[in-house]
């Protein structure tokens, strides 16, 4: 049931294939998964036990209420026994009070158990994921992680808070109603039971169809939203190139396409509901004719027929409910499998248990040594070959080369974000594997290329590298970088909120905050991936000055894009296709007239220089 977009040749965007749709929607029930899922309810174990008891009782209470009502009708009302009627109604009231009073606990406990499980799952996902090394984040899409924490965990919530208990109650209700009906009139009961499988089959057939159709509709909707998002983000291009009308036409055909999927879904549900209704009407007709015959010719009491009219609904309605719950259970299982898979993914590597902390010798930079290091992100595809160099304490190392030459890989190894495939990286003479990641990182100052800031205030962002630092210390750091005035000029100074990806601050301001964050940690090693984008010249000059302060007395590794940065470096490593092709200071390399000199010419466009 697919409707290709009418205008297949001309669309605004092509690839909206959301990978989520590759994922399984259902999974059969599995004991191991179920047990594990329920293990998350351990903190509320007592509530769980009480709830099971409550559910069992409730499954009897509901049919009991109906039974009492029918008994009153067939008994005192028919016989005109006023005392009996009063007693019956009083009994009904007490039973109703008991039923609904208990329902408070049945409902609240279920919701609380569900929330506890969800809370535990989220915490577990977060903790386990954070233990993963960088390679995990390199290959995992953020959208996937988010759908684990949102839709999958929500499906599991429904599984634990509804499916089990609702099914228990409904199933119990069915059984007790069946017993009551069999007790009233076994033959008529057989007729009722015979209809149950039909109802079950019809319902399940449609549920499955719904799931398929709604998946298709969601997919087509994701085409709508993806197109919309690009239309908004590309509005400048659209208006600049006068494409408004073409785009509107394309969007309308996309909407029409989406509405066709929705109509398919609507038609399917338009069949199911009347079909279920038809079933119960059919049953009423049968009851009237067959039951009437039994009353008139077979010695069944008329009152019993009335009881059947009331009870039959209690027998049928659980069938569809359980069917839907079963469907939910399968969805929850599929979610559980994905979530547990994420939790169970073993880290590619972890700190060696025998690793010890890197001793902190204050005031000096660390010595970092690469010994014949080779490295690849994927097995068999090395991106670094035989890297060999030593950066003495306090030395600054600039990494230079084209995109893909291996600059970032070197700083990833220094940061112990990845481990070398071959060879050794040593910090202060210790093999990096023998050092705990935490102790190494606590002595490092990192300035990432995108100048990543968390949402929160500027203060919080700077303090992130050393949460115990006081506000005065933060001010002091900013002052040392000579950027306190810039920060205080922000709308709310240090308390200015920076939004997603630090929006609200300019690139230069963001970089300064990152510098301050790194400096606050008082690191012995600074790792800096210089921003590629150009910043206006005056801000640039301030950044360069701040950088000198940041690097002073610390061993630093810089993926450099600015000439001035390279010029200040004690050692320039020129990389090409994962190898160090040249090394030395800026001046030495220029004189050598090799790779670097050529790169440099492109860099500054020598031919553009005015004669001086």
């Amino acid at each position: 049931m697919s409707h290709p977009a009418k205008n297949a040749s001309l669309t605004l965007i092509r690839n909206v294939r959301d990978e989520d749709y590759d994922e399984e929607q259902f999974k059969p029930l599995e004991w191991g998964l179920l047990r594990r899922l329920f293990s998350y309810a351990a903190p509320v174990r007592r509530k769980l036990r009480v709830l099971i008891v409550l559910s069992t009782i409730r499954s009897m209470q509901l049919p009991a209420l109906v039974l009492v009502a029918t008994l009153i009708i067939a008994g005192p009302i028919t016989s005109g026994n006023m005392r009996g009627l009063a007693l019956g109604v009083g009994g009904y009231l007490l039973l109703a009070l008991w039923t609904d009073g208990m329902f408070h606990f049945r409902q609240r406990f279920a919701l609380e158990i569900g929330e506890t499980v969800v809370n535990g799952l989220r915490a577990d996902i977060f903790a386990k994921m954070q233990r993963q090394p960088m390679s995990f984040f390199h290959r995992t899409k953020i959208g996937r992680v988010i759908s684990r924490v949102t839709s999958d965990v929500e499906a599991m919530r429904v599984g634990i808070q509804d499916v089990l208990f609702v099914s228990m109650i409904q199933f119990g209700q069915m059984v007790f109603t069946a017993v009551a009906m069999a007790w009233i009139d076994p033959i008529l009961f057989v007729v009722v039971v015979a209809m149950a499988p039909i109802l079950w089959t019809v319902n399940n057939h449609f549920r499955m169809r719904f799931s398929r159709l709604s998946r298709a509709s969601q997919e087509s909707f994701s085409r709508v939203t993806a197109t919309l998002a690009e239309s908004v983000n590309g509005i400048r291009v659209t208006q600049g190139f006068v494409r408004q009308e073409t785009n509107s036409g394309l969007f309308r055909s996309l909407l029409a396409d989406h509405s066709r999927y929705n109509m398919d879904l609507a038609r399917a549900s338009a069949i199911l509901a009347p079909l279920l209704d038809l079933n119960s009407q059919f049953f009423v007709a049968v009851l009237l004719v067959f039951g009437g015959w039994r009353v008139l010719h077979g010695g069944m009491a008329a009152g019993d027929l009335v009881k059947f009219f009331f009870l039959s609904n209690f027998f049928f309605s659980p069938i569809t409910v359980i069917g839907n719950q079963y469907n939910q259970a399968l969805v929850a299982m599929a979610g559980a499998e994905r979530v547990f898979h994420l939790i169970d993914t073993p880290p590619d590597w972890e700190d060696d248990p025998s690793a010890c902390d890197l001793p902190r010798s204050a005031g000096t930079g660390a010595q970092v040594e690469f010994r014949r290091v080779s490295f690849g992100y994927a097995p068999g595809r090395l991106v670094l070959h035989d890297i060999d160099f030593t950066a003495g304490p306090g030395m600054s190392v600039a990494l230079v080369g084209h995109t893909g030459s291996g600059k970032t890989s070197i700083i990833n190894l220094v940061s112990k974000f990845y481990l070398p495939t071959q060879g050794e990286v040593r910090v202060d003479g210790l093999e990096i594997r023998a050092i705990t990641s935490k102790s190494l990182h606590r002595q490092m100052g990192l300035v990432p290329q995108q100048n990543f800031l968390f949402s929160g205030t500027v203060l919080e962002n700077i303090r992130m590298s050393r949460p115990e630092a006081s506000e005065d210390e933060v001010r002091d750091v900013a002052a040392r970088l000579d950027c306190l005035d810039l920060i205080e000029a922000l709308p709310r100074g240090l308390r200015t909120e920076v939004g997603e990806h630090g929006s609200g601050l300019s690139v230069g301001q963001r970089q300064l905050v990152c510098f301050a964050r790194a400096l606050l940690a008082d690191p012995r090693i600074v790792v800096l991936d210089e921003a590629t984008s150009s910043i206006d010249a005056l801000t640039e000059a301030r950044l360069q000055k701040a950088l000198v302060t940041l690097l002073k007395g610390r061993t630093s590794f810089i993926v450099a894009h600015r000439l001035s940065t390279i010029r200040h470096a004690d050692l320039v490593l020129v990389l090409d296709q994962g190898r160090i092709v040249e090394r030395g200071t800026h001046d030495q390399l220029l004189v050598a007239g090799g790779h670097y000199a050529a790169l440099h010419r492109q860099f500054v466009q020598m031919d553009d220089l005015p004669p001086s």
Partner: protein
Amino acid sequence: MPKPPTAVQPSGPTNWALIVRLFGLAWRYRLHCLGVLGIQLVLLTMGLLGLNFTGVGIDYIRQKVAAQTLPPGSHPLVAGTSIFHFALPGSWPAMKVLGLLGGMILGLAVCRAVLNYIYTVSVNILVQQKLVVDLRGVVYDKLQRLSFRFFDANNTGSIITRVTSDVQSVRMFVDQVLIQSLIMVISLVLYVVYMSSLSPGLTAACLATTPLLWLMSMGFSRRIQPDYARNRTLVERMVQMLAESVQGIAVTKGFGREEEDRARFAAANDAVLTQQHGIFWRLSLFTPSVGFITRINMMVLLGYGGWLVAHGRLPLGTGLVVFAGLLDQFSGQVNNVANIVNSIQQSLIGARRVFEILDAPIEVKSAPDAVSRPRLEGSVRFENVSFTYAGPGPAGGPPDEPVLRDINLDVTPGQCVAILGATGAGKSVLMGLIPRFYDVTAGRLLVDGIDVRRLRVDDLRRNIGLVFQDNFLFSNTVAANIAFGHPDATQAQIERAARIAAAHDFILGLPKGYETVLGESGNTLSGGQRQRLAIARAVLLEPAILLLDDPTAAIDSETEHEIFDALDRAIKGRTTFIVAHRLSTLRRADFIVVMADGRIVQRGTHEELMRVPGPYLQVADLQLVDNLMLQSNGPPDPLLP
């Protein structure tokens, strides 16, 4: 005449104005709505009939039984043996009558099933095929024409929600509020009339709790709404924290602060849990209470109704049994009130946001008597141009602060002007005035000697090629992206543009050449490649004017040279405005304009500006220090001369 653009009203319309407008929207679909209501009325009547048949059946059986067993002389049973005054054929054998009743119930059920199907489908046709498609189409269309100011002031997420879920909320007013409340009124009236015809006293007794139920559910929904809203906020915050910690994982790990990050997340996660407990309590008090009140109705029916039946004032089947069935459906409709009230609130919120877009003035449009100029020569002249954002500036900046002041600039066709200035100096706005992305607030801007406000906007923009700082490419094929401004372009035209932009070679190197879809796994382009595609897209139109907003900003210095060839060829023969920071680019211009605080503070050729002390020389020196240094191989100097 220059007219300041009208500010967007901060205070929106009142709820009543919105409701009136929503009624207006529904009025457009009145026939369809009426049809849907008609079907529902028939369905309701048929439902009542079916219930009545059942009651008649029960009474009939009881009567026959009574006739068989009861001693003659005892008072006859009260029984409804007529269906809406059509008497059951008394002469027929009992089973034949029951068979007839059973057959009628079944026949009625089949008709209802068919009608129900038609009802659901036609409601969905109204909603899915008409309302939502129409509304989304209109909103999208309008969105495309809004000025950049709107996009500066609203984030992408909020704009997308207006077309997706806000439109859904608006349509809810038609199908959930209007149609549902009409159905509710009709069915409640129908039920009450029918029930009263059986026994007014019993009806009153059974429905006595209804107002209480109404009040309770409305009160509850009003109390719980803020809790739910708060819950959504907390969940969003938790998810955002998760997303951020994945995005910023290098920072967290780099500083060894995983534990603090985990604590942050745990706090957000637990905040959701704690807040939910309050909701759970309220919910678990409300639901059982409503359940209990519904059961009180049943109790009243049994007690009072039972008394009536026992005293022969009410038949059992057509009376008590039918009443029980009706009560059930009645309480369903009563509970619906809370849903309708919620829908009203939701649709008003959605309507406010949707109408805000539909009402936003299109600030830039062609004047009725606009001049048509399919081909422009490309002379550009700024005469005392000033520009001020009306209302708050982008990013909540101070309002009414002029962004441009008294700009005078004369550019002849084919000239290349470079613009230099710090962030916020007004460079991008200056360029944005030329294609009328913004309109001047004072002075005038002439292209080919004509005020741009008197030119047809489409003509003007088709004559202008644009290359932005960070160029947006659509997730479509390379060819479609280049041909964006001219979808009917031939392959030859596309390739020619690509050659001019020095993009042809790398495009051929892509997996599927010009048919490669951008953004698919692996098909990511480098900054330089993206920029060259953007240049190709701009030159495909053969524009007389080319606007380049810092085209090398997002590119490494190492690869910057890649696009210089492209730029040189693209600029040739076109009036060009280029925002740049690097000397290498600035030197390519015929003359340079230096901006600060919205004013032109310096102008001249590179050579001229290098001779006078001023901001240009200052910036140039910063970069020249580097260059001179490498010539002399001297020791590193302080950064500022």
